[in-house]
Structures are given as structure tokens and as C-alpha cells.
């Protein structure tokens, strides 16, 4: 496979919160047009990895290449140009509450293109129709249900017809039926537009439905990468535990949890010297 077949390449990525290392030496190659799932338990750093990929965090070391160009070394204007070609669905959809659903989906088009309002309207309606929200244009985000918000988030992420789309926990907080609907939608988007999708999740049920390939993260390191079937058959004890849904030893876990809490607190102190009362007043 040549380099051209990979749309996203991660090389030696290290991410830190203060002194605490959250991700260590992450190497990933994501192929054009595939759905790649980042799996892992709570707090293993998978959301941090996603935040690094979309540029919400700057990695402490390493590189992220989109189509062979280093995203981390780009100027702010170049990064904006790359961001126009990516879409992201947040866990809580993150629709702007001050705007109607229609305006939310139309926002990227209005901001980044010089299209006429009539063209924007057609494009927005197509996107809303695509996610099954036709007729809800004038609703405010607060009037939508959780599943509808997720769909609206996908419509907004799709507004600019991106090459790649990132999903943060798409099925979190949804009932199984609605979650399955969102999974189908992710699959449909990928098939229809030949998108590259990167999905962060811990839902085993949706992995089987949507993933072409996946990686399994544990404590900031990649344990295994490959097709879902390969991961399931993987010999690593954590992979077996994760796919077998076996609980960890409770006593060991609670000790580790307390330690992680203490470390986290210390790290937060070091990372953020300015807490309360950092200016006068109060």
C-alpha cells in the first residue's frame, strides 16, 4: 500500500495534561474511505486522541498527517483550511443553542462559502433530509430529543461535504433502538459519500455494525489494531477481557482509581497555575 491510500497517519503521538502523560507513542494509519473505530475503556485516552486528531489539543510530541501533510506544524490559516474538509460530531452534539436547527446546519456554509442564500437553503435541506430531520428546520436545539440532536450534529458535520468525519461516542446516552439508528446513519454516510470515518466508542454492539478496522487503547497505549474479527481473536489479555466483557478485579481497581485521582489532581494543579482568584476581586 502506498502512502496515498492513507488519509490520516499518526506518528509517535504523545499527549499530556500537565505532567501526566495521557497518550504515549501512538502510531496509526487510517485508510481512505474506511470506518475506523477507536475502542477502549473509560479514561484510557480515546477522547484525547480524537481531540488531538481534530486539532482541539496540540500534541506534546509526534505528528498527525492528513494526506501526507503535517497538521500539527501548520499555521492557523492552513489549519482552518484543513478543518473545512473535516466534520466532527460531538458527544452532546454541541449544536449552538442560540440558533435554530436550520441555522446550525447552514452555519459552516455561511461562514466558509460565498454561496447564495437560496443555494445554502437547498444544501441545508438535503443534509437535514439525509439524516431524517426534514421538517424540523425551525426547531431550537433544546426542543430536540437526544437522538435527534445526534442526527443534527451529523448533518452539521456533513454540511461542507467533508472528506473525513469524526464521531465522539455517537451512541452514548441513547437507547438501543435509537443508537442502532445512529449506527446505521454512520454506515449510510460512509457508503453514500465514501467518507473516511473515525469513531470513538466503547459500545461493542455498534463496533460490529460500523467498523472496518479498529484499534484498542489501554492506559494511553495501543494494544491492538486490525479488523474487528482479528481484534476479537487477539491474544492480548486486555483484548480478551474487553471483548469478553470480563470485569476487573474490584480491589485492584479501586486502589488504581484512587491513585489516578490523586495523580490527576496534582497534574491539574501543575497544568493550571491560575485557578480561583487569579486576578483581583472575589
Amino acid at each position, binding site marked *: 500500500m502506498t502512502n496515498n491510500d492513507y488519509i490520516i497517519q499518526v506518528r509517535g503521538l504523545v499527549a499530556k495534561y500537565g505532567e501526566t502523560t495521557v497518550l504515549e507513542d501512538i502510531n496509526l494509519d487510517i485508510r481512505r474511505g474506511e470506518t475506523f473505530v477507536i475502542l477502549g475503556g473509560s479514561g484510557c485516552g480515546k477522547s484525547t486522541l480524537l481531540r488531538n486528531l*481534530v*486539532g*482541539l489539543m496540540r500534541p506534546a510530541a509526534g505528528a498527525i498527517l492528513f494526506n501526507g501533510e503535517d497538521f500539527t506544524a501548520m499555521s492557523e490559516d492552513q*489549519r*482552518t*483550511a484543513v*478543518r*473545512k474538509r*473535516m*466534520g*466532527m460530531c*460531538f*458527544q*452532546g452534539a*454541541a*449544536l*449552538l*443553542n*442560540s440558533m435554530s436547527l436550520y441555522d446550525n446546519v447552514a*452555519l*459552516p456554509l455561511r*461562514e*466558509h462559502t460565498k454561496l447564495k442564500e437560496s443555494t445554502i437553503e437547498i444544501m441545508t435541506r438535503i443534509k437535514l433530509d439525509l439524516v431524517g430531520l426534514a421538517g424540523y428546520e425551525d426547531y431550537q436545539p433544546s426542543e430536540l430529543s437526544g437522538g435527534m440532536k445526534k442526527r443534527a450534529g451529523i448533518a*452539521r458535520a456533513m454540511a461542507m461535504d467533508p472528506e473525513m468525519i469524526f464521531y465522539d461516542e455517537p451512541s452514548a446516552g441513547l437507547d438501543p433502538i435509537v443508537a442502532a439508528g445512529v449506527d446505521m446513519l454512520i454506515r449510510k454516510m460512509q457508503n453514500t459519500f465514501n467518507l473516511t470515518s473515525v469513531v470513538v466508542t466503547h459500545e461493542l454492539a455498534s463496533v460490529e455494525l460500523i467498523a472496518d478496522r479498529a484499534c484498542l487503547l489501554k492506559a494511553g497505549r495501543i494494544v491492538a489494531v486490525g479488523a474487528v474479527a482479528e481484534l476479537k481473536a487477539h491474544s492480548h489479555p486486555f483484548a480478551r477481557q474487553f471483548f469478553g466483557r470480563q470485569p476487573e478485579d474490584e480491589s485492584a481497581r479501586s486502589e488504581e482509581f484512587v491513585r489516578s485521582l490523586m495523580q490527576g489532581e496534582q497534574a491539574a494543579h501543575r497544568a493550571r*497555575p*491560575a*485557578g*480561583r*482568584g*487569579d*486576578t*483581583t*476581586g*472575589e
Partner: protein
Amino acid sequence: MSMVTAVFGWTGRISLNGLYAACRVCLLVVSTFDWILVRPLRGQGLRVRSTLLHLVEFGAHSFPVVGLVCFLVGAIMAMQASYQLSRFGAQQFIADLVSVAAMRELAPLMTAVLVTGRCGSAIAAEIGSMKVAEEIDALEVMGIHPIRFLVAPKFLAMLISVPALTMLATFVMIGGGYLLATAVVGIEPGLYLERTANALQMKDFSTGLVKSVFFALVICWVGVYRGFQVEGGAEGVGRMTTSSVVTSIFWIVVVDMMFTVFFYFL
């Protein structure tokens, strides 16, 4: 020994935190001016519609409460002045006192404090809750700069509406003093107006106006800064909203003091 380290540690921490906050505010200030003055020249336009909406919200909608409070403060000032000046039979000086105090000091200050409570807190709460709901992150991922999208319109609207409100507030405050002095104290209306006109100079007017411009900057930047500082959930929004009002009023008074000293010697 531990006592000494504690004292030095405490001073060092306070200074470092102060320095850190100052740097953050400077970044915010530079970025705001970049998006208002520099980027529009390169074709990345301002959000005119949003600016106008904020102008209505910060300016027009603030006027009733600002006007009412300033009217009452004018009347209170006239009454207090009368209480003192009547002992010397110098009641006609109420006009001088009320008009100069209103124009140089009280109208800008009252307006700034009221706008802080009404709009500064709203800015902090809006940006804070957007941050909690990942809306700020969403803007960034969409390639929309939060300073351009959120801060620039608010900043421009604040910069126009606070001086405008201050001017209106000055007239209303002088009106409050006039009404009380003529109706209650019994000063002849013509005399009162004449004394007011004689007492006021262009310098008084510019003093008040310059102050109000800087108050607008303080209100906007403190609100925005506190809003972006929000972490955690609803509790963080509440804490930073409160903090934005307290910090903003503190800095308004500090700026006021600086300008008062400056104009005193000018």
C-alpha cells in the same frame, strides 16, 4: 523556616497567577483587535447582524434601567447637596454640583456598574455555558474562530453602547437633579439651567466620555475572560458569572481612579 518559605511561596504564587492572568488577557486583547481591525481588511468580514443585535441588547434594552437609576441618583444628589448647602444659603450651587458630578463621574460609573450587572454577566454566562456544552470546541472544529464569532460583535456593541448610554444617563441625571431642586428645594428653574450651563465645560464632557470607553473595554473583556475560564459544569458557570461581575466592578473603579487622577492634573 517553614514560615518564611510559606510567605515566599504565597507571594510567588500570587505573582505568578497574576502574571499568567495578565498574559491571557493580553492575548485576548490582541486577538480581539486582530479580528476587528486587521482581519476585515483581508476579507474576513465582521458579523454585522450579530453586532447590531448585541447593540440593541446592550444599548437599547439597558436604557430603561440605566435611565431610571440615574434619574433617581440625580435627585438624591440634589437633595443631599441641598441639605449641606442650605446651611450657607448657597442652594443655587446645587446645579453646579449635580451637573459636574454627573457628567465627570457618576453617570459613567453608574452606567458601567449597571451594564456590568446586566450585560457583563450575560457575556460570561453565555460563553461559559457554550464552553461547557462543547459549543466553543464545535466552532473551532468547524474552522470558525470563537473570537470572531462571539467576542468581536459583543466588543463592538459594547464599545458603542456604553458611551452612548453614558451620555443619555448624564442628561437624565441632570434632569433628576433639576426636577428635585426646582420642585422640592424651590430653586427658580431659569436660574438652575443657567448655572448648569455655566458650570459645564467641554473638558467635563470629554472626561466622562473617555472614561466610559474604557469602562466598556473592561466590562467586555472581563466577561469574555471569565466566560472562557469556565470549567466543569453548571457550577463553574455560576461561579465565573459572579466572579465576572465582582472583577469587572473592581477594575471599573480602578480605571476610574486612574482617569480621575489623570484629568485632575491635566
